[in-house]
């Protein structure tokens, strides 16, 4: 910061130190600066805290369940005489929701981002942006209600209608249960759409105007300018937005808990009930389970997997963001 260079001048400091008022002023300054530093450093404490707690609390779990059987087990059953703690069904449940949400949010979000940055007149932008912000601010629980009361009935009605007009194809249509992965994925896609659109808009707006003008000058249509010049130039930022949306979908909890169900099973059928890692954590937390219980310990093991997945995704996204910033 250039302004700070001014205060860095040594003579300025010795000048303020010369008077008593000046001295108290520099002391105040030092104290405030120290306090502000502590606050900033607190974020590091939080990260270290999260990491160490997930790690420490899951150690007792891994002493009873070997890591290999946790990571490769295909059944998660906490009840009964022979409880099984295999995380795979939870991971595939999360994967199904995440991929499904990406199918909804990525193309829609990208197109909205293009519309906002390239086509929308400023009046439309002024209305559309707050609407998208509001959509981003709708609580997760509300999306859960939406999935249950509208999306799932819609999916069921849709397949019923399709079976009627195309009876030969009916074996290929999934049968949608009251709670199903598809509804969860769709609403999570809606939730992450504003994230994709606003980050894509930022990335596209950051593309220098010269590039557009050069392409127009060569006789390109607007669609050609966007698809062949602007989007490739904004590529890093756009990819970052996609990855961040997926990472958000992995960590999404309430809508998925309500919409996708509570049966951990290894399936890729979007009509089936699935349980995500986050939903499992909620499920255990809702019951009153004490600290020594293996079920209590198991949520920290799941939390560790969840944290690592989102952490890696975020690092990749940041890599792309930095790439974009570096090129500008």
């Amino acid at each position: 910061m250039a302004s700070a260079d001014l205060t860095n001048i040594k003579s300025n400091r010795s000048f303020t130190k010369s008077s008593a008022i000046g001295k108290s002023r520099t002391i105040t300054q030092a104290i405030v600066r120290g306090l502000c530093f502590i606050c900033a450093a607190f974020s590091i404490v939080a990260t270290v805290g999260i990491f160490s707690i997930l790690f420490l609390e899951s150690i007792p779990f891994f002493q009873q369940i070997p890591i290999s059987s946790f990571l490769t087990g295909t059944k998660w059953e906490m009840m009964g005489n022979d409880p099984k703690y295999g995380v795979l069904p939870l991971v595939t449940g999360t994967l199904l929701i995440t991929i499904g949400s990406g199918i909804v949010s990525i193309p829609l979000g990208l197109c909205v981002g293009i519309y906002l940055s390239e086509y929308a007149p400023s009046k439309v932008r002024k209305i559309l942006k707050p609407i998208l912000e509001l959509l981003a601010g709708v609580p997760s629980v509300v999306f859960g209600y939406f999935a249950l009361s509208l999306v799932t009935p819609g999916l069921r009605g849709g397949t019923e209608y399709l079976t009627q007009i195309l009876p030969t194809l009916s074996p290929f249509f999934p049968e949608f249960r009251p709670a199903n992965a598809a509804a969860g994925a769709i609403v999570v896609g809606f939730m992450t759409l504003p994230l994709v659109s606003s980050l894509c808009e930022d990335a596209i707006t950051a593309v220098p105007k010269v590039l557009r003008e050069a392409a127009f000058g060569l006789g390109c249509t607007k669609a050609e300018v966007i698809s062949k010049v602007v989007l490739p130039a904004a590529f890093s930022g756009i990819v970052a937005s996609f990855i961040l949306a997926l990472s958000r979908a992995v960590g999404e909890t309430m809508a998925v808990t309500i919409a996708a169900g509570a049966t951990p099973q290894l399936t890729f059928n979007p009509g089936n009930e699935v349980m995500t890692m986050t939903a499992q954590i909620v499920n255990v937390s809702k019951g009153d389970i004490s600290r020594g219980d293996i079920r209590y310990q198991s949520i920290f093991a799941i939390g560790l997997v969840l944290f690592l997945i989102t952490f890696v995704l975020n690092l990749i996204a940041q890599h792309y963001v930095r790439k974009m910033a570096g090129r500008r």
Partner: protein
Amino acid sequence: MSTPAFLNPPAHTQKRKRRNLFFQSICLFAAFIAVAILCTLIYKVVVDGVGRVSLDFIKANPSQMFPDKAGIWSPLVGSMYIMALTIIFVVPVGVAAAIYLEEFTYRKNRLVRFIQVNISNLAGVPSIVFGMLGLSLFVTVIGLGKSILTGALTMSILVLPMVILVTQEALKAVPKSYREASLALGSTQWQTIRRAVIPRAIPGILTGIILAASRAIGETAPLIVVGAVGLVTFPPDSLDDRYTVLPLQILDWIGQPKEEFRIAAAAAILVLMGLLIVLNSLAIIIRARQQAKG
């Protein structure tokens, strides 16, 4: 793109023009869908729940037995507690951290860059993981139990990265000349920050606080983990009382088999959305006024 447009045969130009129009319509259509999603959602909730919203609904406590008389008083009070406490905890820390990162760092050295990357990472951590931090740290290690205080502290750590990032943006937007003028008059850096920079950045900081507040009343998952319960039939008296929040009450009602509870859930969603829309419009008004000032 390989050949200039005027050399192409007319048929090709026609095709390109059509493709151009098609591309534009797709983008417009996507924007339309985004708006339609929000409208459908609001429409559905209003149709389901508007008949149920009344002063009695707000002032009655939830009840398992009488779905018709159940209200949202205790969860609403719980949400207000969580929101207020979160703001009280997070604003001083968040603003101070942002001031350090934007104003007190002469050159962005390694430590500052590390803190910055760390904050972005923290912002991407799933909310439920913060709940697990709270469960282990506040409930067990510090021994605050499953209280409102635990919930608010957990929520504060959750919204902290957002407050820091938004405040940093607000500070960045203050013109350099403000700082230079103040420093040239002989103020220390802290005086400059306090009297020249912060007053100018206040609207931006307020927007950040409002965003944090709306996040704090909308989030549910971390509170479930740190022990907010589904059904509490009386508002909390003190900070270590058991409590519930509005989204959690909604979750509870959605899970009930009776139709009346689903309607109550829709009505509670309406109240929650109403609160959020009020907060959001506040933020928009503040921003518009700031832009008008230039």
